[in-house]
């Protein structure tokens, strides 16, 4: 066998005169509908795709390696930059993994606030998804409507933590702040009008025959394909598998709230769109219940926001300022970082886009020995290889839209 020479090109298998009428289109990384930095190499017969090859890595920041050189609390703001549409979900996934590693018990008030943040983030993410997907298919109006409601939620989050996009609003062992005044009132005001907003979107889209034509029977993801590609979240549920980690392995207070998991067995774009719309309704329903829970917590005068665990978590500010031992402990925890016990842990949470998993391997030092992120969008990007062939260029846009990939999360 001839050895390909590194310096001279190996021409044996390359034909220069091709008669197959195939065009290769470089779709992205800078493209209006590439949702960040997706580069797709599309092999085209006229406008039909024969082969699609997603190329990722244009937003790679090496988060997993960065984590190995940071103390645990330091890594928290970096997780914001993964799925930047719903940052608190990432914060929460990481915090939950570390909490499981160091085995602390989060106080109830913090849990309620976390639930509020998580579901608000889910709504924000789904609204953003609806807006951008509608824009990709050409519905400018729904785009602006969706962003209007998302703005309201971002204002709520801003009231809470001061940031709108990168929240870093959750700490290991609890939350840093209590809810501000009027937060619950504003939230209730939003929840009162939100069902009408969802109905507005559905009126604009579901009764539009062109929208149905563009969505139905396009990008059909069968059950077997969804399983073999490791799809999770709405992608999996649209393909007929009722899998929601909030139901299967309840974390936080999800076993106390009442909500349904919408499922469809069609697997096409339209099924995914329906799943997102119904999940928004369910999220609003959860938020109503959690708002009541918060009222109850306030009534019970349950004020602790951070877990009590002197080895790992700083004492409340008032103790640090008044008690010598707490001050020393705080100093050590800030300068050196917590030292979790030797061990490894994998925790999966249901982020708006699917299963968001954090694997942490601790060797007893202040830095994680290895941190692995399992981001749902990464797996959903892979599906494009199988999903796109046989479709036309306009469908590429709608399929990328409904897979709901965010590149902060894919490239990490």
């Amino acid at each position, binding site marked *: 066998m001839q050895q390909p020479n590194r310096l001279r090109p190996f021409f044996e298998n390359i034909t220069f005169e091709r008669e197959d009428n195939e065009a290769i289109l470089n779709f992205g990384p800078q493209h209006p509908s590439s949702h960040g930095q997706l580069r797709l190499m599309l092999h085209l017969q006229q406008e039909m795709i024969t082969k699609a090859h997603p190329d990722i890595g244009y937003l790679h920041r090496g988060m997993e390696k960065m984590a190995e050189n940071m103390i645990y609390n330091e890594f928290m703001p970096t997780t914001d930059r993964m799925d930047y549409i719903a940052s608190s979900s990432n914060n929460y996934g990481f915090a939950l993994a570390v909490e499981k590693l160091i085995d602390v018990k989060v106080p109830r008030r913090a849990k309620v606030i976390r639930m509020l943040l998580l579901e608000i983030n889910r709504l924000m993410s789904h609204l953003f998804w609806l807006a951008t997907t509608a824009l990709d298919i050409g519905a400018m109006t729904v785009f602006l409507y969706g962003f209007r409601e998302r703005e309201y939620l971002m204002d709520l989050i801003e009231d809470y933590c001061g940031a709108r996009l990168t929240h870093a609003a959750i700490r290991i062992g609890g939350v840093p702040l209590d809810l501000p005044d009027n937060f619950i009132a504003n939230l209730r005001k939003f929840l009162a009008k939100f069902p009408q907003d969802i109905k507005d979107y559905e009126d604009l889209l579901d009764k539009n025959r062109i929208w149905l034509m563009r969505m139905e029977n396009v990008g059909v993801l069968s059950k077997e394909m969804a399983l073999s590609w490791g799809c999770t979240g709405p992608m999996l549920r649209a393909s007929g598998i009722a899998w929601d980690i909030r139901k299967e392995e309840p974390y936080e207070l999800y076993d106390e709230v009442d909500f349904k998991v919408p499922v469809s067995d069609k697997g096409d774009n339209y099924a995914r769109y329906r799943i997102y719309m119904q999940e928004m309704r369910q999220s609003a329903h959860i938020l109503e219940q959690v708002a009541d829970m918060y009222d109850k917590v306030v009534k019970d005068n349950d004020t602790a926001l951070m877990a009590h665990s002197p080895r790992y978590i700083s004492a409340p500010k008032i103790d640090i300022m008044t008690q010598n031992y707490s001050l020393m402990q705080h100093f050590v925890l800030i300068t050196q970082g917590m030292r979790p016990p030797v061990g490894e842990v994998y925790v999966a949470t249901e982020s708006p886009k699917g299963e968001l998993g954090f694997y942490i391997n601790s060797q007893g030092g202040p830095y994680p020995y290895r941190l692995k992120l399992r981001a749902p969008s990464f797996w959903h990007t892979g599906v494009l290889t199988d999903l796109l062939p046989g479709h036309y260029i306009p469908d590429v*846009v709608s399929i990328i839209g409904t897979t709901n990939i965010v590149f902060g999360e894919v490239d990490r």
Partner: protein
Amino acid sequence: MSHLFYEILLFPGIGYLLLVSVGLYWVFRKILAPMHKRVGPHFNGPAGSFQTIFDLSKLWTKESITPKGANVYLFSLMPLITLIIALLPTAVIPWTPTEIVVRSSYGVIIFVILIGLEPILLFLTAFSSSNKYALFGGVRVLVQMISMETAFFLACLSPAILFGTMNLHIIVQDSSWLSFAILFPGFIIFLIAFLGLLEQPPFDIPEAEQEIVYGVYTEYSGTNYFLLQLTKFAEFSILFAGGATLFMGGYKGIFFNGYLFLFLKMVFILFFMIVLRAGIVRITMQQMLAFCWRYLIVFSLLNLAWIFIAKALFMGSGI
């Protein structure tokens, strides 16, 4: 002679057409904005009416980049040619009872052919810019042209058949409420087909921003892009005016005749276009072709038959 220069440079020539195009575009933005729950242009001029002029002057002064590998002459020449071709039909349209530059007996044909030339020129601009996205856009322009212009021609033919003349001036003079009612199916077909020609939603397939990045315009920037944009604006106003002239009786008004009524009719057609734009999503090429050849062209042929029958029945003359 000086009157001819007045007509070419001011009314209804270049100056007027540019002004009305920019004005209509401002109306377009101003009406679209509340439907999106926005404000629209606001700061420059009264109610933001200078915004489009500012936008265009910005484009005008920006650097015009010619990509490597493009056919330089074709690339730079085409925007100018498309603009000139787009401005020409203004000569045959009767803007006011007295103002019509070319009193031709073939007004309808001149109008239709000058409009129909535009897509071919756009394809040439795409072809010259040697970019795959532009090429896809160009091919889409051609496909859309072939399917949409058939319906457009047939729709434009119906008033000519009804009034028995191709002279736009006579068509306007002979028009009445009865003729508007007879031409109404044709008018609907005209409205649908002209959305396709102007590449407006739901037929904005050739310049779909999210799919092929504005298609033929991908490589254009600066002055060349300015010319192409201006071409589009001019084509908008010409087609609005053409539709109003052919089907709605042009300058004919309720109490008096005048340019005002033509303008109102143009705004009416614009309003129809905007409402569709706000409420509808883009269809794909295949769906457009299916719609066009299965329904639109069939109905435009039926419409011609209806026009023949109606002419015999209502207009009191044989065919």
